[in-house]
């Protein structure tokens, strides 16, 4: 098989011709060379080109791509919601055999909900905060004139039951803010399928959900598929897609670079970009290997020796928060750990597990209710800030959102100079900034630029350079790669591994992503409700989990078993 050459304009045509030859019986959605463009200022900008696929009963087609790939625009174009000023063209666009290209606003309204259900990404903003979820679901029934009040009420309960919401009668009367993220997402699915559409388009249905909740939502979609629904799944997450999809389209910069049956595409990706995507998924098997292509292989030889004397020791950390009405929540409850030099300690947990609070306590940026932290054997927390300040340079931090951690008025050069310790003087300051740029793989020209004008990956590199500037002993990385596209995440993870080898710095690595944790960590703490439920090596945790919660967590990871040997050392 040959790789599709994108520079050849005929490539896509050839690919879709080949696709046409296949016989599809009764496709519910038939898309041929879909193109979407915007022209806000009279200049036409194509954002999607050449999307071709069929969606049959009981099947799932997935569109995978990173931010800006055009996958969401494609999904929205299929329900007539591409947006103001958009131009949607196609050779064919058929919904249940009807030509959707000629649809007016009224036609689309009839199609949406009844024929095509659309599950939006963010349940919190997509549900009306002032209405009960029952009323929300009822509305789509009422608008489409589905029966009287009593009948609709029964139908709402039936729908909630069907998407796996426990106690539907109670839940239907609750507002979105009274429901957990998973229940909200399921309520949203219920409202999308209220009128029994046989096509369901789900745009990132599990993004921002905890992994155990994600597993429940995926199981729900799986069930709908088994019952004969056709699902179009939009996601950036290959492991989610691998779970559900029969056919996958990989999009990049508005183009479909590769498509094919899920098994074939994931196990033998032909396009370079698909290969990079598949290779970039971190996990236990990828430890010690490169996630991003085109870099030197991991230097051979032994990793930096792990010093038996701990750099950072936390003992019995407790942090309580006072809630309204005198209630007290214990966010962190007796957490202890040791971090050795050159070691990576991963803390994994779902939202509300107290992992970020633990990071803040370790950094000495939050008040400790009980417990102590020592740094190089000397007290670190609790300690008055004035006594700690001179040693602050030993502990650095990299956040999830680098942009908000930079002063918006400062360019990269000033940000890095500001982070240098005072004892670096004169010409040495400029040299050190150059050295830092080199270490994180950034070019000279970013120095004069502002964080706002940098890409997400570049920003995170600047944040890492700033963290390295004082030559710290420990860097606390709080969800530092969580907001990045998977290929960028792969590059940053590779960078972190390199930096640890060259500088011997220790990482306290906090993440909700088990794949990332198992890729990077030497030891892992699993947190739930402020307590460490299990700790051990990644091997212990991921292969021989002891605690029931850890087992549930491991079982929830979407299986992604497509190890790529090419492109890796």
């Amino acid at each position: 098989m040959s790789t599709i050459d994108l520079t050849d304009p005929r490539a896509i045509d050839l690919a879709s011709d080949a696709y046409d030859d296949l016989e599809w019986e009764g496709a519910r959605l038939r898309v041929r060379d879909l193109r979407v463009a915007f022209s806000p200022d009279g200049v036409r900008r194509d954002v999607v080109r050449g999307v071709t696929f069929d969606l049959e009963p009981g099947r799932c087609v997935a569109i995978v791509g990173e931010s800006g790939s055009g996958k969401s625009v494609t999904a929205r174009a299929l329900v007539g919601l591409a947006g103001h000023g958009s131009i949607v063209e196609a050779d064919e666009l058929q919904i249940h055999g009807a030509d959707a290209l000629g649809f007016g606003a009224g036609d689309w309204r009839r199609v949406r909900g009844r024929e095509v259900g659309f599950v939006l990404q963010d349940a919190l903003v997509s549900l009306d905060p002032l209405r009960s979820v029952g009323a929300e679901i009822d509305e789509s029934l009422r608008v489409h004139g589905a029966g009287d009040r009593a009948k609709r009420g029964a139908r709402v309960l039936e729908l909630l039951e069907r998407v796996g919401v426990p106690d539907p009668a109670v839940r239907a009367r609750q507002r979105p803010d009274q429901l957990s993220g998973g229940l909200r997402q399921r309520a949203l699915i219920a409202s999308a399928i209220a009128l029994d559409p046989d096509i369901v388009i789900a745009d990132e249905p599990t993004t921002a959900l905890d992994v155990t909740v994600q597993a429940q939502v995926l199981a729900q979609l799986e069930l709908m598929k088994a019952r004969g629904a056709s699902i179009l799944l939009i996601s950036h997450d290959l492991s989610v897609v691998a779970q559900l999809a029969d056919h996958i389209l990989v999009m990049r910069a508005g183009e479909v670079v590769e498509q094919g049956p899920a098994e074939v595409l994931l196990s033998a990706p032909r396009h370079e970009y698909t290969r990079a995507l598949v290779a970039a998924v971190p996990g236990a098997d990828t430890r010690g290997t490169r996630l991003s292509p085109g870099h030197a292989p991991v230097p051979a030889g032994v990793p930096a020796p792990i010093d038996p004397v701990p750099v950072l020791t936390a003992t019995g950390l407790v942090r309580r928060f006072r809630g309204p009405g005198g209630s007290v929540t214990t966010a962190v409850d007796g957490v202890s750990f040791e971090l050795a030099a050159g070691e990576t300690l991963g803390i994994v947990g779902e939202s509300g597990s107290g992992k970020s609070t633990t990071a803040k306590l370790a950094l000495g940026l939050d008040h400790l209710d009980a417990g102590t932290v020592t740094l190089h054997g000397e007290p670190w927390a609790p300690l008055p800030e004035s006594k700690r300040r001179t040693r602050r340079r030993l502990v650095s931090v990299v956040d999830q959102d680098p942009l908000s951690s930079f002063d918006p008025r400062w360019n990269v050069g000033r940000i890095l100079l500001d982070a240098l310790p005072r004892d670096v003087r004169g010409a040495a300051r400029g040299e050190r900034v150059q050295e830092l740029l080199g270490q994180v793989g950034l070019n000279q020209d970013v120095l004069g630029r502002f964080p706002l004008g940098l890409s997400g990956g570049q920003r995170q590199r600047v944040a890492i350079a700033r963290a390295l500037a004082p030559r710290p002993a420990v860097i606390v990385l709080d969800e530092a790669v969580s907001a990045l596209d998977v290929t960028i995440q792969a590059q940053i993870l590779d960078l972190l591994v390199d930096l640890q080898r060259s500088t011997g710095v220790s990482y306290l690595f906090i993440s909700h992503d088990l794949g990332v944790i198992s890729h990077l960590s030497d030891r892992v703490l699993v947190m739930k409700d402020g307590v460490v439920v299990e700790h051990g090596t990644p091997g212990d945790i991921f292969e021989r989990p002891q605690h029931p919660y850890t087992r549930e967590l491991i079982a929830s990871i979407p299986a992604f078993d497509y190890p790529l040997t090419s492109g890796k050392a």
Partner: protein
Amino acid sequence: MTAVRESDVPTTAGRPPRRRPPVDLVASLVLLGVFALAASVPQVLATHDAFAVDYHAALQATSLSHWFGTDESGRDLYSRVVFGSRESLLIGLGAAGVGIVAAIVLGALAALGPKPVAVVIDRFVEVLFAFPALLMALLLISVAGPSALTQILAVGAGTAPGYARMVRGQILSAKRSGYVQAAVALGHSPARIVRAHILPNALRPLVAIFALSVGQSIVWASSLSFLGLGVAPPSPEWGALLDAGRAYIVQAGWLVVIPGLVIVALALAATTVGRHLQTGLEKGEK
């Protein structure tokens, strides 16, 4: 060559083509320029001696020789407006300046000061809020006597509480920001963080607020003069012109209408510029 390096995919495309500046902004800037010229070198713009009394020409309507007409003493109203602009503008700018400086001091103390100080300042600002601004101005003027200086102080004191609240909010949000947290984690001293991050970021929006405040202050100062609580006639300060013209509102309506329009024009221009600055700054942050 790497297939997917992020530097190939910048998040922001090239700058959009430069658009023409909005008409209202240009008109406002031109108007402010004319006022600034009138205030700095009135003799260039004036057509007559603003103080020369000519009873033969009293209460004449607008004409080619007297563009804005004449007052009860035959003085040329146009020239008086021109000569009055220096005092009017200085009072407006001064009052806005006093208001903003007081607001910065109060707001910064409330947000950064030690807790007891912050609590006292907060209560003080609340008390100021509770007083109608005009009542406070009356109080101040009855104590210190009407003059341009008390007018500036009175209007400044009237605007300060609102802006102090704004400054306090800005500083508090800067204090909670990620970049301040990052600076704390780097071990920078509180003084350095306030100087390098908190004040510059918190005070940036005040540039626009100041321009808005100038417009408002000029209107307030003129109202005080009109009530006889500020600069008194025969000074050609615009509020004073209104006050003097009040007696002839039936026979010579232009004596009130024209200075009134001038005040409105200046306030509008300053406000327009302020609004544009504000949206410009907000866009810059996005």
